């Protein structure tokens, strides 16, 4: 049983950690207050809205929970405590997340107390499958571990471009990994899913771009693991990240989920570019997010072959015409009705066409789109600095790159399948981000995405000099997350448990 009105109010306040500050006495409150309890009537209408979403807090006190209340059973064991913000002006209850604490493992509470923590947007607790999924940002992780605190600073744009392009981007990969042979794959924590990854990626993109979130007029979220059949991820992203002008409790932004297997997000890049270029759209920036908790049946079950490659994570790209770091020079898309990979409504795991997923599907479409685009721009493989291809497994993208005439130094920087696994809709976006992390100005990048069912979008990007300037905004880049010393490796059983979530 759940109450939707309560759910709406709790997530509205709790996802963003909305708070208030009295203009008269400076007292701060968690939650939205119309007046200050300290100042009373005279403070009515003089309460500033603040929020703690981009803030860092301090874990004041904590204890260990191994006998939780019923809805937290799946999250147990965990550390629960009190986090303070703004030198103790606000104190909130807190759960430490991203911690796997097995029974019998000693938790040194005094080692945790006093440390800095970052609020994280996560699922709140377990509910029945038909209920609205409760979320909250009263989940925290240690700032000196995997996920550091990053300030979100809005930067006024300095240069306008004729051609639209990428203004900023962010990649989110979870802290947990499974390592089998040479392949490492990202695993979500119990309270993570494609919704939380989308928000995280979007948050990082805002941090990187310095774009004011209220100037984002449209947000697309492409995913094939939305925990809802009906209810957009994009709406959650828009509200938590406060995209578009905020008016009351409604955001002035268009938000939509897109679906085309693994190319649901990349397909929208051209729409985002077009939208910000259309003079009457009134939209300065558009955000396109691709994120997935890539689904696969367990090994040994039909479709379980996918379980060797699936990962978790995503990336968000902000498109616009100001302070562009990579201009989108052109694109080519192709589509055919090819049943190589699908998931029927109500089915938990996808099915696939075995060996047909390669030749009549992946290779045919990616080859078609990329070759057509190179033809149009009269480019040879050697004219391009980087090639980014969809990475359903470690073999396909390499074979494709070689066939198109690319050398290792051109296609390897984008190859993240060995680090994070196949993140489905997040796959090409993460690959593109890892190239932008290392590219130099005035380099050409060719992108060839792929979505089963089937189609491919090819893009040609040209980097600008502002690419280098913006890099310093983003500490949590692809390399940071791939080579982080706080990565925690789990075994196959734990991986399945985490992946299936709460």
């Amino acid at each position, binding site marked *: 049983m759940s109450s939707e009105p309560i759910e709406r109010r709790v997530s509205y306040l709790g996802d963003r950690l909305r708070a208030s500050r009295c203009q008269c006495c400076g007292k701060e409150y968690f939650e939205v207050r119309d007046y200050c309890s300290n100042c009373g009537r005279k403070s009515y209408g003089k309460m500033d809205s603040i929020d703690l979403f981009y803030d860092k807090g301090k874990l004041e006190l904590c*204890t260990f929970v191994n006998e*939780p209340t019923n809805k*937290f059973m799946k999250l147990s064991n965990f550390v*629960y405590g009190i986090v303070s913000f703004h030198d103790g002006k606000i104190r909130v209850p807190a*759960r430490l997340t991203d911690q796997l604490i097995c029974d019998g493992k000693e938790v040194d509470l005094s080692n945790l107390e006093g440390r800095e923590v970052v609020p994280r947007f996560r699922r709140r607790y377990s509910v029945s499958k038909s209920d609205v999924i409760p979320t909250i940002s009263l989940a925290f992780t240690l700032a000196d571990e995997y996920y550091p605190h990053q300030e979100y600073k809005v930067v006024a744009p300095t240069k306008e471009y004729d051609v639209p392009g990428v203004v900023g981007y962010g990649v989110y990969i979870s802290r947990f990994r499974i390592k089998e042979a040479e392949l490492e794959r990202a695993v979500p924590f119990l309270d993570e899913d494609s919704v939380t990854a989308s928000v995280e990626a979007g948050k990082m993109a805002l941090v990187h771009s310095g774009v004011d979130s209220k100037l984002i007029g449209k947000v697309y979220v492409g995913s094939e693991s939305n925990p809802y059949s009906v209810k957009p991820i994009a709406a959650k992203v828009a509200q938590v990240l406060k995209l578009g002008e905020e008016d009351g409790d409604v955001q002035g932004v268009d938000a939509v989920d897109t679906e085309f297997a693994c190319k649901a997000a990349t397909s929208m890049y051209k729409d985002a570019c077009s939208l910000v270029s259309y003079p009457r759209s009134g939209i300065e920036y558009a955000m396109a997010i691709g994120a997935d908790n890539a689904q696969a049946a367990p090994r040994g079950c039909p479709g379980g072959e996918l379980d060797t490659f699936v990962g978790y994570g995503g990336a968000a790209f902000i498109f616009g015409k100001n302070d562009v770091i990579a201009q989108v020079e052109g694109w080519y898309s192709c589509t055919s009705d090819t049943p190589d990979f699908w998931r029927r409504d109500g089915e938990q795991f996808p099915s696939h066409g075995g060996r047909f997923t390669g030749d009549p599907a992946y290779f045919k479409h990616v080859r078609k789109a990329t070759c057509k685009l190179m033809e149009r721009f009269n480019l040879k493989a050697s004219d391009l600095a980087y090639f980014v291809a969809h990475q359903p497994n470690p073999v396909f993208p390499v074979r494709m790159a070689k066939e198109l005439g690319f050398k290792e130094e051109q296609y390897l920087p984008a190859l993240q399948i060995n680090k994070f696994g196949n993140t489905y809709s997040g796959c090409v976006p993460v690959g593109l981000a890892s190239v932008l992390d290392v590219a130099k100005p005035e380099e050409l990048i060719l992108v060839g995405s792929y979505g089963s069912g089937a189609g491919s979008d090819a893009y040609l990007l040209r980097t600008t000099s502002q690419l280098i300037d913006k890099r310093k905004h983003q500490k949590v880049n692809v390399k940071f997350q791939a080579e982080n010393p706080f990565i925690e490796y789990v075994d196959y059983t734990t991986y399945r448990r985490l992946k299936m979530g709460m």
Partner: protein
Amino acid sequence: MRVASLGILVNRLSGVFCARNGKPLIAFPENVKCYCKMEGLVLQNRPVIVAVGRTKFGEHYGKEPEKLIEEAWLAASNECGIERKDLEACYMSDCFLPITNKLGLEEGFLSELTELHVPMETTRSFSAALLTACHAIQAGVYDTVLVGGIEKMTDRWDKIRDDLMLLEDPWSYYAGGTPESNHELMLRAYIKAHHVTGENLDKLNIALAQVSVKNHANATKNKYAQYQRAITVQQVLNARKTAQKPLGMFDFAPISDGASALVLMSEAAAKKLCDSPVHVLACTSATDYLNYTAREDLSRFVAAEIAMKNAAQMAKTALSDIQVIEINDQSTVMELVSLEDLGFCKPGEAWKSIYESYLGNKHFYEVNGRQLYVNTDGGLKADGNPFGATGGAQIFEIYRQLKGQAGTRQVNVDGGLPKSGCVSEFEGFGTKAYVTILGERKD
């Protein structure tokens, strides 16, 4: 209503001064004021207790809630000869009956039980019911009322811990809090606030275990208690180790079923019935934020301090005159902290008195050179904690002690019966605090 500033209050209260050096034991935070109209209060209709009754606490699998309250009421009725038709009103308390037993209008089933149509009201705790009943007697509205409490928690054993979170801020629940976690956080806050480290920290942990050991030992002499068996300090410490937590199973009160009742009368009406009723010298309450994390001081319960100060003033009783106290030990930490909040020990020092009692293997705490008997019935820990009925059992115990009816657990002070006793009860985690002082009339 007159607002007494802190300074004036402290000066007027002998009870909050240290008996040895005359220094005040409690210092309020500056923003905490006591609101209390005590002086000039005409107490013509003094409330007195003429009889008490209770059931055994524990699991009553086969009994409906009404069977329990019936049992408690009949015991009280038997004791004083008051019949149901003599009752002019009923004040009843339960905290979770609507949830545990789908009973939303408890007054109705009490009416059916007694075949009475008198005014009846329900509160969440026994002390709250008693407070309301006292006000009615003092106002001269009634002469004879029933105060009853009931709880049936084991009927929802698998969900009761979630239900308990109703008494806390919803955000704590949303963040993963449990009924135990605030107690553990308060212990850590206490340790930090009073800089308890090293050897002292070990002693503090043993002192907390001793609270439980002492309460269990007391319960062996109480036929109504839920756990009538003794435990050892080592068992308490082992349970903490098993739980991998600062506090373990033996540090917390159990969930229980049970009922309690008492008959409250005006002094004048009671004279016809018995010679020596027990006077309710004071009954007070105070409130604090629901949200524990937002409270200014996380290492104590300000509401308990305020309620105690007001009660001591109302009863014109010095703390040094109170020999038996019943503390709401939902956890061992709560007993420790309450000893300080109520003014019996200095802040940060109660654990020393408790540790001494452990060393001496005593069932009382030595505070300022005198003996303080705490939770002689076994406390919530061993007697049981059926929320709505708990306060009634606490009053029951003090009543028995003051009347010399406590049997093998009877406390003797200087060769005589204790003169006055005090009951402290909470609703929630220090959100509402009630203090009741019982004893002989002083003027």
